[in-house]
């Protein structure tokens, strides 16, 4: 199986949306600030539901916020 690496543009999008704080984003999508931090840092991959919520907050498609790259084999 090919290993995939998921990256995201949350930090840049927050900056572009009047420097929205992690706390603001967390309240909008219904998770804790720590969870937003973990997602942003790539330490946790969110569920589809949360991914869609994040994309909705920024008015983007999910694949514009989260992208994946194929890496080596697992």
């Amino acid at each position, binding site marked *: 199986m090919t290993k995939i690496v998921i990256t995201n543009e949350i930090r840049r999008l927050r900056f572009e949306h009047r420097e929205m704080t992690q706390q603001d984003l967390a309240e909008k999508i*219904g*998770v*804790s*600030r*720590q*969870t937003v*931090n*973990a997602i942003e840092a790539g*330490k*946790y991959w*969110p*569920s589809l539901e*949360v991914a869609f919520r994040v994309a909705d907050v920024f008015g983007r498609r999910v694949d514009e916020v989260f992208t994946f790259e194929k890496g080596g084999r697992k």
Partner: protein
Amino acid sequence: MSFREKSAWVTLIAIIFVSVLYVLHVPRVFEPTHWAFVAMMMSVASFVVIEVVGWLVLRLRNPAEARTPKDELEKLIELKALRIAAYVYFVGSFAAVFITLHLHHGVGGHVVGASVLLVFIVAEIVNYTARIVYYRRHS
């Protein structure tokens, strides 16, 4: 540090504190006495008091976070920690029963009960330690 992580710290400290006090003050596990039973009840009561007071203090200091329901990452962390603790409890219980019944012939049921209780306490310590490790890893 999140509210959930602080709560896990409070519970972990309460478990360790009460368990150590109990073990230090009730050394004769092999003799079921009225005092041992009273000490155990007092330990359970102490644990509940520490837990409730700690939780109330944390809630007063973080009211918004305390009201927020657990999100998916927090639920996942709890499940992962619980899985590790369940392995410890499952294996530990069998080992405790085997050791007390087969290696020490003639012991009473209270010794088996005490050893299984000890395994439960160790499993809970593992549970809350694992939670804290996962919270740290994701912070």
